[in-house]
Structure formats: structure tokens, C-alpha cells
């Protein structure tokens, strides 16, 4: 199996968590979210985001509003819903546990 594939799978696992985290700092639109993750060196293609955002919104974790943009088509600004905030908190806990466990497992 392709190493790239495995790496991609790893990233996919944490993507939701990252998105929610980014949005916890404020409302953003998709390319902003990508930008912030790029700053943190989490490289994801934009296309990945759209369906994911759609799903999170359908699950009730996010909501959006439209904003007219000066240059270009109107943008969707996403924000966390209360449910989303709760979800995020749980994921944080889960993430910490996971990190501990994986570290312990991979220690030689």
C-alpha cells in the first residue's frame, strides 16, 4: 500500500477536528480556513474542504451566512453552532487521549 495513501488517511482522520478548532476562533470562509491550516503547516487541498464543511453543516455542527464580497461572488462564512462547540470539546479530550496512547505505543 502506498505511503502517500496512508499519510492522507492520517490527515483525513483529524481534519474535522482541525476545522472545528479553526472556527472556534471566529467565523471564516473556506479559503481562510485553508490558509490558517497552511500556516500551521497542515497542508490540505481546498477541494477536500467543501464536502467536509457541507457534512458538518448538515450534521448541525456548523452554520453559515452569506456575505457579499467586493471582488467576486458572495462568500459563505462558517461558524460553530453550540452543538459544534460541544463536539469540539469532546474531540479535544479524545485527541489528547489519542496522542498519549499513540506516543506510548510508538515509544521504543
Amino acid at each position: 500500500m502506498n505511503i502517500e495513501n496512508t499519510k492522507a488517511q492520517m490527515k483525513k482522520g483529524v481534519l474535522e477536528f482541525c476545522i472545528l478548532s479553526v472556527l472556534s476562533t471566529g467565523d471564516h470562509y473556506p479559503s481562510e480556513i485553508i490558509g490558517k491550516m497552511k500556516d500551521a503547516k497542515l497542508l490540505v487541498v481546498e477541494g477536500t474542504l467543501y464536502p467536509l464543511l457541507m457534512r458538518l453543516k448538515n450534521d448541525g455542527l456548523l452554520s453559515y451566512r452569506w456575505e457579499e464580497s467586493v471582488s467576486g461572488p458572495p462568500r459563505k462564512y462558517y461558524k460553530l453552532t453550540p452543538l459544534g462547540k460541544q463536539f469540539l470539546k469532546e474531540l479535544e479530550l479524545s485527541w489528547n487521549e489519542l496522542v498519549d496512547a499513540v506516543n506510548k505505543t510508538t515509544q521504543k
Partner: protein
Amino acid sequence: MNRTITMNLGGIIFHIEEDAYDRLNKYLSTIKGYFKESEGCDEIMHDIEARIAEMLQGKVSNIKQAVLLADVEAVTAVMGKPEDFAGESGGSEQQNKSSNSANSDGSSNAQSGRRRRVFRDTDEKIVGGVCSGIANYFDLDPIWLRGAFAISLFVFGTGFLLYVILWIIIPEAKTTAEKLEMRGEKVDINNIGKAVNEEFEGFKKRMNDFSNDVKSPQNKERMRSTMQKIVAFIGEVLRSFIKFLGKGVAFFLTFIGIALMIGLLATIFGRGTISVFDSPGASIHFSLYELSSAILPDSVPISLVVIGIILLFGVPLISMIYRGVKFLFNIKQKNRIVKYTANVLWLFGLALVVYIGIQIGTDFSEEASVRQNMNIIQPKGNTLYVDLKPSSEDDLEITYNHHHKIRLGDWTMISKDENKFRLGYPVMNIVPSTTDNFELVAVKSAQGVDRKEAEYRAKKIDYSINQVDSTIQFSSYFDIDNADKLRGQDVKLVLKVPVNKVIFLSKRMEKIIFDIDNVNDALDSDMVNRKWVMTTQGLECIDCDGLENVRKHKIN
């Protein structure tokens, strides 16, 4: 210089070169293809297109007014390869999609740990959704179940009852959760939404596709192949049914073969009597052993007969049993040697039987008869009374009923004891006497390999009469020695009556008289119990008054 296309992307108008447009179009179509199955596909596409439009806007200006291929490539690089991000949409959508396109009725692959329950699928039902529901549970094509039910309707309608019972006890999948459970798909928000969407989209699509699909050659092919499958299936069922029947017949034949074999062996080796026939015309109650010893010439040992018969009849019987068993148990081995041996043995048996037949036949080649005058005392008066021996012991019919007896029409043979056979009946005729006396001649005849032997046998026939005053008592039988064998021995009696003398035939005599000439043209049955006088023309009835069929003749 290139041609450009005017394009509307995300509400923004672009001039885009042809090749760039094709590339972008392909890109977007591919993405759309990946998201077709998921909910909110349109919205996703809209978002993506808007984002692309935004990015392209940054690439055009007053100086560079058209979108080039390079621009599209740059943008799609940023967006990412469709297969990469399409996998993001809610848990292996891609896998779902490819698996969905493989199964015709949307049933998912067996995902481990998914809950499955049997429901009736009322969305895809023909009658009550029973077959669809069960098929969903097992990931089968419902057509097989429907076929099975349809065929079972012909078998005393068992299928009908079963179907109704299933219809009653299996619940209908009403809620979306139940519908998902029916197919084994995990019940969660995604799938429910997906299912609902599916319904709706599916309905629209069905309406649209219906008119197209019905006429499409592809569907016709599919229908034809399904028909072929059905026919093949029915053919298979019929074939197995016939095979089953065949097995039943084979079993039956084998059973009969074994039974006949046992019978044959019992007949040959048993000394007891086997009753083969019992009808008015003929009856055979005899043991084969006794019969053979009566018929077989001494030159042929009885063992040869036994072997011959066993081979002649036994080999076909055994081969029938053998073949039956083979067929029943699907044993295929063809043993050449066995077949060969069987044929040879049978031919040998046939040869033996033929040989024996010839041997017996030659013993019958010559016939001879011997005339013996039997002494009778003349009656005191004019009338001679003629009767059968009264003792019941001598009556062939009574004593020897069902014991060691063969009867064919008038010919009867009884095994009297160790040494003798008793044969019946002798035949009597009445003719005018050439002298003044009553006379009795016994004509004994027999057959043999030559005249001498035939004569010898004839002479050895033992026939006796008894006379008490004016009554002669005749035996209804004659005896032969075992050693003389059954060789067509026969006794004819000629009773000679002088003219003007009277003879009275008792009722019992009916048994041995045969077509006696008389002037009145009376039948044998009418002649008995009457007096007859011998005239120059023949016997004439004295006390036949009142008989219908009898011609009256004046006594001269």
C-alpha cells in the same frame, strides 16, 4: 489567436479559451460524478465553482482578459485532484458509490458488524415485498426467490401458503431506519438522509429514464438474458425432477428384480409346491423338481436344468438389479469385464436350455399305440350299466385339489406317490359291436425316441376297470411309472355295444365320454343318465322324452 467561450461560473462571466474550458468542464464533471450520490451535491458543486471563480478572477485583468489553460491548471492544482478530496464526504462515499453501482438494487456489501433484520421491501415489491425483503437480507437478486415461489405454486400450492405466512409475519419496512436495517446499512444521519434523497431522486430518475430505458437495446438484452436465466432455472428444476423420478423407477425395478430373483431361487431349490396358476382353464400346483424329474430324460441330470434356468433368467435379473443400484447411487463405473462375463454366462445358459429342450424333444419323436382287449362279463339282461368308480378316493378333482396337480383344460396330472404319476382323463367312445357281445378295447398310446420305446411306454400304462354284476365301473385316470416319464401317454376306450342291446350311462360318465355318435344328435351332457339302444344306424335314445334338443326318432 484562439477562440474563446463565454462562461458563467458562480455568477461571474468569464472569457475562457476553448481548451481551458474543456479542461475545467471535465474537472467539474469528475467532481460532480463523485458527489452524485451524496446529499447536497448541488450545494457542494456551487461552493466549489464559486471558489474556482474567485480564484480565476484573480488571474484575469484588463490586460489579460481571457482565462487560459494554464490558469485552469493552476486553480485545479490548488483545489486538488477530485479523487483525493472526494473521499472526504462523509465516510468512504467513494466505496459506497462503487459498491452501489455493482448491486442493482442498492443493497450494500456485507459490512461487518452492521445490523440486519428481515423486512418486507414495499418499495420494490411485486406482490407483498416478501421476496424483495428476503433478497435484501441475503444480498440476492429477488428474481430467484420469486421464481421459486412461482414454481412452488404448481406443487400443490405450497408456495402460496408459505408466502402468505411470510407476508403476515415479516413486518414492513416503514421508517427509513428500518429500510436501512433491511439492507444492512448502518443507520446514521448520513445514510438516512441519503436514503430519503435516494427515494426522491430515484423517483424523478425513474420517470425520466422509463421511456428511454424501455426502448434501449441494452435493457432488451438484460430482459432477454433474465428470461434466459429463468428458462434455464426452470430447466434445471425440471431436470432434477426427472432425475428424481428416474431414481424412483430405478428403485422400483431393482426391488422387483430382487423379488423375482428370490422367487426364482425358491422355485428351483424348493421342494415344496409353488402354485403358479389357478384358473378354471388351467392350474399348476407343482414343484419344479417333480416336474423336471417327470419330463427330463434320464440322460439329462437335473443339475443341468437348474444351471441353465439360473443362467437364463438369473443373469438378466441380476443385471437389472445391478443397473438399478448403480443408477440409484450414481455409481458410474462401467465394468467391461462384468458386462462381458454376464453376456457369456447368459449365452451359456441359453445354450444349455436349448440343448435340454432338444434332448426332451427327441424323446417325443415317435408315437405308438397298443390295443388291449379288456375282459368284461356279459350282463345278464339286455342292458349294460356304465359308471365311474364311485370311491371319492379315485376322484381326481376332489382328493388332489391343490396338491401336486397340473391341469390344463381336460388334461390332469397328479403326482400320486414316489413311484407313480396319475393322469386323467381317459376318453370313451361307443360304437356298434361286430359280434353279439359287449366288448371293451383300451387303446393306449405314448411317445418315445423310437417306435420300440414308444410301444414299451404305451404298454406300461396302467388302466383298470371294475365290474359288479351288470355295471362296469371305469377309472377316471390311468397310472404311469415315474421311470417312464411323461411322454404323451394317452388312453382311449372303445366300448362296443351289440345291436339291439341297451346301455345306460351314469351321470358321472360325462367326465370321460366324448362326442359319442348318436342318432338323436344329442350332446354328451344330454346323453348321460339315459338309456340308449344300439340300432343299425347308431345309438338311439330310449327315454329322451321331454328333451328339447333331441330329435325324436321312431324305433323300428
